[in-house]
């Protein structure tokens, strides 16, 4: 691999995404992408006693499903990168404690999945044969940690987003068939002073813009090079802002750009306001929907930019602004 420009790595032997898996919750199962996910759950608990246990089970089963789909024995998977939104990333560490694969826990808020893909790609190019990465989120456990009890009769602002219940996972290998990770652009932390925790899209959009433009500058590519440019969870408002801001900077992404948070729910029927969010949003939409498009050869070049809001409930109560992050990964057939 070699460094391009300021923030991009180009892979000389691009790692192959040999297998993916996704499991989502009941609300996502009623959304427009339901048919693409490997498993749709009927309730948020999935037979567990707590939401935290349920989220751990979701990530565990998604990883197991991905390994069995790939046909690679788990003894040949050298590293696992995983993360989620709960304090100290307990969903992934509890869910994957029986996995028996060297485990590196990561946190990038909702950008975790692409952070995991990037690290897996680096380690596969460097030394490993196979690496697996996973990310999960759960609407109920996230609401409990970041907002109010579920049964509280309050109203959500129009700018708020709906945390996706679900997990996505991918196995990257040195050899095999499938789309390849050709470039990664790791983002810088960008904070434009947004303090409203109910408007994450606006807080993260400047970070997405920074990474997007940096990717184009470093690689010398233009937006039209890609069949699709997809952000993780900017939602309707963040998507709108990103289109605006990138046009300001001279990049027209309007025709081939979309957002996983916009795609996963039907805004009018499902009352999700500004769209989906959470680690599981980008992870499940990529692992479910986009990977299948690659398999059907309907998609050849994808730029996936996962966005994260690096805050917690204490920082917002103390009046801190929300630092945003975005990591981009270029996946090509």
């Amino acid at each position, binding site marked *: 691999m070699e460094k391009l420009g300021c923030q991009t790595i180009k892979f000389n032997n691009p790692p192959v995404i040999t297998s993916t898996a996704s499991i989502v919750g009941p609300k996502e199962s009623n959304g427009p992408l339901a048919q693409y996910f490997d498993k749709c759950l009927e309730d948020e608990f999935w037979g567990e006693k707590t939401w935290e246990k349920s989220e751990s089970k979701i990530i565990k089963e998604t990883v197991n499903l991905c390994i069995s789909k790939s046909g690679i024995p788990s003894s040949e998977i050298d590293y696992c990168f995983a993360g989620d939104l709960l304090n100290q990333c307990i969903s992934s560490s509890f869910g994957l404690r029986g996995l028996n694969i060297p485990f590196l826990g990561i946190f990038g808020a909702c950008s975790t999945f692409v952070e995991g893909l990037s690290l897996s790609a680096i380690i596969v190019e460097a030394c490993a044969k196979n690496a697996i990465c996973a990310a999960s989120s759960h609407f109920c456990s996230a609401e409990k940690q970041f907002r109010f009890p579920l*049964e*509280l009769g*309050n*109203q959500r602002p129009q700018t708020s987003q709906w945390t996706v219940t679900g997990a996505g996972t991918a196995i990257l290998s040195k050899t095999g068939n499938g789309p390849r990770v050709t470039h990664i652009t790791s983002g810088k932390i960008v904070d*434009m002073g947004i303090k409203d925790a109910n408007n994450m899209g*606006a807080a993260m959009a400047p970070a997405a813009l920074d990474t997007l433009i940096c990717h184009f500058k470093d690689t010398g590519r233009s937006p039209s090079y890609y069949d699709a440019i997809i952000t993780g969870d900017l939602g309707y408002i963040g998507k*709108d802002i990103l289109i605006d801001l990138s046009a300001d900077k001279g990049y027209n992404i309007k025709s081939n750009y979309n957002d996983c948070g916009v795609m996963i729910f039907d805004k009018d029927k499902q009352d999700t306001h500004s769209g989906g969010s959470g680690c599981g949003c980008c992870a499940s939409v990529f692992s479910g929907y986009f990977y299948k498009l690659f398999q059907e050869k309907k998609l050849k070049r994808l730029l996936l930019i996962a966005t994260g809001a690096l805050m917690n409930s204490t920082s917002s109560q103390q009046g801190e602004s929300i630092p945003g992050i975005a990591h981009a990964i270029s996946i090509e057939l």
Partner: protein
Amino acid sequence: MKPLDSQKEYQEYVNKKSPNSPILKNCFNAFWVGGLICTIGQIILNICKSRGLSQDVSGTIVSIILIGISAFLTGLNVFNKIGKFAGAGSLVPITGFANSVVSPAMEYKSEGYIMGVGGKMFTVAGPVLVFGISASIIVGIIYLIFNTQAITLV
């Protein structure tokens, strides 16, 4: 306009981009649902009084019944839907207070009865209690100072 020039400009740009809550619709729903809850309370009060109970006892019965209904509906996953529809209409009457105590109790039951239910039950209602009681103490002191008759009454 360059929205990314400064944080202030970006904030103004974001405010312009972000849709507002449908305030007229929310006010209307809050008005009639809130009114309905109060009417139900009044009906219970009148029934109690017509059975020969005093005003004070009837008022207490109204509170108990409304709190009971609200807590029950919270447990059935119904009150949050009413609250989403009616906003302050169901939140400001005593029904909202009951909901704000029962919902964290349900949420944190997974952390056990002592530290979960007991410790977290007032996370939402706590501020209302603290400042409600503080405000009534201050008002009481002012009343004592300016109403000398009150002192003789006490």
